[in-house]
Structures are given as structure tokens and as C-alpha cells.
């Protein structure tokens, strides 16, 4: 790790050398200059982690140096030091943005802690900026590949809505990349430097969801030993992504509706209203209109969320994208694993295109990862594919033009469950859906484990 750089500004030579000697011993890279003019030159030219500036100096005093440094490098922390401390100068220094005000000579314990804290804070700020840049570079629509007209329409829509503040509802089957679209909207919009907070409403138990979203005050309920910020509060100035919005209870629907209308909320057990500036993006794989008709979802909440809708087509509706996705994931996992597998055989591609992908893009991604890990050659062959893809011929034989989509899904889930001996985690992984969704589907289709065969659809 490179040494942190500290700029010392003091007109007294003895102070300069004494302070720099000590800072150098403490492991910092130090430069000491005798006045504000030299210091400002150095701040303009180089990167510093901290400046320690004497208050009383001829020509330009410490406060003037502080003001000018703030203009050149607003994020540079500046400690004002003085042998002639007064309350007035301390107040002035802090008002002008000094990180601290310390009286000379310093207590070794105090100064070492103050400097270490500020330098560490500065290191974290720099690391944060670096990581944000790296993330932004890495993101760039990478995983939103696809050239089908349906996908191009989605990408166009993302670009249109990103700069606005409007609430967006993303619809699409599990595994189509709803969170990816939400992230793209966030990254391309003016909120990209603020948090993107995702809440998987379907994965959080109902009793916890309210606390998770709104947060709670200390003592609000048994176990609330300290104050806890909710995801809404964490997303302030950024984007809140509410995944699987169709799974939330009527009570949370009411709370959420109130928050969306008023843009303020109270923590559980709290008395004060907290105002936040949050852009909401919701997503669902459910038929919300049907839920409204059945009285399971509030229509007023639906209208609030459904300002702009983005429909992500399922993978089977845009088969021409499958080869592009397959190549993209191959390249991505090759880089991650360091394996040099750079081709997919024609036979494998045929199988990939022919398959129905109930778990959509996520399932395809898992399948390619599986194939790449198993593969021993520079090309992915049929035997490298997951078992359910190799044996899908049997299923295809059973497909009849009269079959419904849900019947297909039921059969496929049963088939994959059987192939993996009813291992839920493995099956969910292969299908590209989460375990909760899989349990729900097992319940919905009344699938039961058969003693002999493994599955009885």
C-alpha cells in the first residue's frame, strides 16, 4: 500500500522539521513548506491525503490557506495547528471547513489518533471513488446483451427513463434480468453516485419485511436492541429497487403506498417523519392485474408504481439472442476461471436454441458456467452440458401443440427435480430461480417426491 502523503505548512523551521520527523517516523510521506504560497502551489500540482497548517503565519495566515485549499481541493482534509489557541479562531477554522483544530505542542496520543483517523477516512474515500469507477466500467450494459428487436426496445426504454425521476415497473419472468435493468436505469441516471438498494420482497419473511424496509427504533419490539436504518432510508438520494413486489402483504402495501405518496415515513416505533429522496423501481413476475381483480393487490399502489412499464421478454420469445448470450457468458466465465474455452460446438448451440429456458437468462448463464467448469477442451461439447439439457430430447418428445405454458413449466420443474434427486438448492440453481420461488412452484403444481422414481408430477 502506498504511504499516505501529508503536507506540513509552518513558518517556523524548528516546528516544520520536528513535525515532519515525527510524521516520517510514523510512516507518512511528508513535505514541509514555509508558507501558504508554496503550499497552494503543491496542492495544485500533487495529490495529498492531509494538510497540517499553522494558524499564525506572516503574509498569508492559516485560515486564508485553508479557504484557498478548500477551493482547489475541496475533499482534502486540513488540520489547523496553533500555539495561540482562542475560541474565536477555533470556531472560524471549523466554520471554514477545517477537519480539526489542535493546540501546539500536541499530546502524542491525541495527534496520532486524529491523523490516523483522517488519513484512513481519506483512503476510504479514494478507494470508494476507485471502486465506483471500476464498477461503472464493468457494468456498461455488459450483461444486457441481445440484438433481438424486443431487447433493443428494452434498452431504448432504459435510456429514455434513466434521466427521469419517474417510478418504473419492470415486468418479466424469473431470470430475465429485472434487477440488471433496474441497475442500468440507476447507473445511467443522475443518481448513479448514490446508493442502489435492492430489497427482494419475496425472499424476506413478511414479519421482517416492514422492519427491513422502514427500519426501527431501539426498543420498538423484542430484539430491537439498537436503532436500525431501513432500506428506504439507506437509498436516500439513490434508487430503491423493490423486487417481487407482487409478494408483499396487504399491510405492507398500505405502508408502501403511503410512503410513495408522501415521500416520508416513520421508523417502526419512531415518532418523527423522515423525508427521503428516493427513486423507486419495482419488479414483478406476477400478473398484477389478475391479483388486483382477486383483491390481492391494491390498485392504487399499482397505479403509483406503474408510471412507466418495461416488459422484459422471456428468452424463448427471443431465441436469436441465445447464441449472443451464450458467447457472452462463455467469455465472462473464461475470464473469471482463467480457462481458455473459446468456442461452443454447433451441436451444443442447437441444443441451447432448441431448449425452452423456463429459468430464462439466469438458467442459461448457469448452464454455460457448468459447461465451462466441466469442459476439458477449448470447445464446449454436448457432454459438458448439464444433464437436463442432454436428456431434453425425452421432454421434447412429450411436447404437444395443445399444451399450456404452465403445463410445460410443471413438467420441466418435475423433470429437473427428478434429475437432481429432489435437491432443492441444486434444482433452483439449474432452473435459474431462487429456492423460495421453487418451493412456491412445487406447491402450486402440487409436485411430490415419488419413492421409486423420485417425482410424481
Amino acid at each position, binding site marked *: 500500500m502506498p504511504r499516505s502523503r501529508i503536507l506540513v505548512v509552518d513558518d517556523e523551521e524548528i516546528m516544520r522539521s520536528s513535525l515532519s520527523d*515525527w510524521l516520517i*517516523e510514523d510512516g507518512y510521506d511528508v513535505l514541509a513548506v514555509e508558507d501558504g504560497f508554496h503550499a497552494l502551489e503543491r496542492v495544485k500540482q500533487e495529490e495529498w491525503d492531509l494538510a497540517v497548517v499553522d494558524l499564525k503565519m506572516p503574509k498569508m495566515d492559516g485560515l486564508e490557506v485553508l479557504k484557498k485549499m478548500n477551493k482547489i481541493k475541496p475533499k482534502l482534509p486540513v488540520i489547523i495547528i496553533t500555539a495561540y489557541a482562542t475560541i474565536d479562531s477555533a470556531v472560524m477554522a471549523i466554520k471554514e471547513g477545517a477537519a480539526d483544530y489542535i493546540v501546539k505542542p*500536541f*499530546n502524542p496520543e491525541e495527534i496520532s489518533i486524529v491523523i490516523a483517523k483522517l488519513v484512513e477516512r481519506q483512503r476510504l474515500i479514494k478507494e470508494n471513488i476507485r471502486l465506483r469507477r471500476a464498477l461503472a466500467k464493468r457494468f456498461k450494459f455488459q450483461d444486457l446483451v441481445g440484438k433481438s428487436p424486443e431487447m433493443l426496445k428494452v434498452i431504448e426504454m432504459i435510456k429514455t427513463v434513466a434521466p427521469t425521476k419517474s417510478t418504473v415497473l419492470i415486468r418479466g419472468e424469473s431470470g430475465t434480468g429485472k434487477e440488471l435493468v433496474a441497475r442500468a436505469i440507476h447507473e445511467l441516471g443522475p443518481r448513479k453516485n448514490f446508493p442502489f438498494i435492492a430489497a427482494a420482497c419475496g425472499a424476506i419473511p413478511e414479519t421482517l419485511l416492514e422492519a427491513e424496509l422502514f427500519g426501527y427504533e431501539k426498543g420498538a419490539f423484542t430484539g430491537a436492541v439498537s436503532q436500525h436504518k431501513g432500506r428506504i432510508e439507506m437509498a436516500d438520494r439513490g434508487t430503491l429497487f423493490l423486487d417481487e413486489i407482487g409478494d408483499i402483504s396487504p399491510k405492507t402495501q398500505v405502508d408502501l403506498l403511503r410512503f410513495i405518496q408522501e415521500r416520508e415515513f416513520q421508523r417502526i416505533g419512531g415518532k418523527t417523519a423522515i423525508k427521503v429522496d428516493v427513486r423507486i423501481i419495482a419488479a414483478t413476475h406476477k400478473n398484477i392485474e389478475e391479483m388486483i381483480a382477486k383483491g390481492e393487490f391494491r390498485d392504487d399502489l399499482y397505479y403509483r408504481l406503474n408510471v412507466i412499464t418495461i416488459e422484459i421478454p422471456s428468452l424463448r420469445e427471443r431465441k436469436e439472442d441465445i447464441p449472443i448470450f451464450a458467447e457472452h457468458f462463455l467469455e465472462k466465465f473464461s475470464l473469471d476461471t482463467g480457462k481458455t474455452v473459446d468456442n461452443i460446438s454447433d451441436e451444443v448451440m442447437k441444443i441451447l436454441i432448441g431448449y425452452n429456458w423456463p429459468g430464462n437468462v439466469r438458467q442459461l448463464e448457469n448452464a454455460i458456467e457448468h459447461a465451462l467448469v466441466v469442459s476439458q477442451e477449448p470447445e464446449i461439447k454436448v457432454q459438458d452440458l448439464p444433464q437436463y439439457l442432454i436428456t431434453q430430447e425425452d421432454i421434447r418428445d412429450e411436447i404437444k401443440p395443445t399444451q399450456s405454458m404452465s403445463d410445460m413449466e410443471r413438467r420441466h420443474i418435475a423433470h429437473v427435480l427428478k434429475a437432481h434427486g429432489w435437491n432443492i438448492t441444486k434444482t433452483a440453481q439449474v432452473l435459474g430461480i431462487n429456492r423460495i420461488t421453487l418451493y412456491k412452484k412445487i406447491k402450486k403444481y402440487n409436485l411430490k417426491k415419488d419413492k421409486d422414481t423420485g417425482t410424481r408430477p
Partner: protein
Amino acid sequence: MKYIYLKTIGTMETSIVEDLKRSLSLLIPFSLRCVYDNEYPLFAFEPERNQYYAKKIIVKLASEIPHDCEKLIAITDVDLCTPVLTFVYGEAQLGGKVAIVSMNRLEKEYYYLPPGNTTLLVDRLVKECIHELGHCYGLFHCHDSQCVMFFSNSIFTIDNKQKRFCMKCKEFFERQIGKEHNHAEK
């Protein structure tokens, strides 16, 4: 052959210096020599602070260093300070020849505790001597609170750290000794 000199400045009990020499000889790869000087360094006295400037003493000692001296560590009972710090337990020339350690704030009496045997005091002195010696070989402060090169900003940090270098500092220390010796031979 070159020695590490332990030079007393002011009033020091011979037994403490001998104990210190014995403990240090077990921990550092050098022969040690003791020199006693009972005079107080009044030239470094700062009346406003009632303390002595460590650097002024170091500069004087550096000008009169014996020819067979590898490094010189001065031990004193006066309270040391620097222009920017209210006190220091010790000071050294980074990558230089001379260091100084004060036992003033290492004694139990300083913290209004009854004086006991001198084991704890010698232990603290050993840690500070090795710490300053480390600076003389170019070592910076270490982030490992157990390493002898950890910055001592209170008596608790001194008592908490060990009398030895961490692996990283030890490696650096030994490399520096080798470098300085090669340089001297050339």
C-alpha cells in the same frame, strides 16, 4: 568490532543500566558497552516547559560519537519533549547513529504508584531502546500493536507491546544491518 553504546545522561542507577544491558544483549545481535555520564544536558533545557529537547541532545551526542560505535543509545532520567509533542519516551535519528530514551515517564512513581522492584521499568526501557534502535536502522512505526515498532503514545501501549519485532519489521531490521555492514566494509 563495533558496539552498541548505552550512555547514561543524568542520575541513573548502575544496576538498572546493567540489567538493561543484560536484557538487550539477549535480544539484539550486538555487543553492548556502557558509558556513564552524570551531567545534565542543560543546553537542551526548555524552562517554559520544564523539559529537555530530545533533538538538541541527539545532535550533541552525534558530534562526539566513539569510532567503534555501531549505534549509540542515550538513557536519561530527564523528561524529554520535541517542539511539537508534549513529551516523548524517546527520539532517534531515522537511519542515523544516535537515539535517546527517557525513563522519566516509564517509572511507576510518575503515575503515583508505589515504587516496586525495577523489573517493569527495565522491561519498558528495553522496549523503548529496541524501538529507537529500530528507527536508527530506518524502521518506521508498525501497525501491529504487538510489535516493538508500534508507536507508543501512552504507557499502556508500551506495556501492551512485546520486546520483539514482528516478522515484517524483523526482516527489514536484519536486512538493514546487513546493508550497513556491507557499506562499512566497502
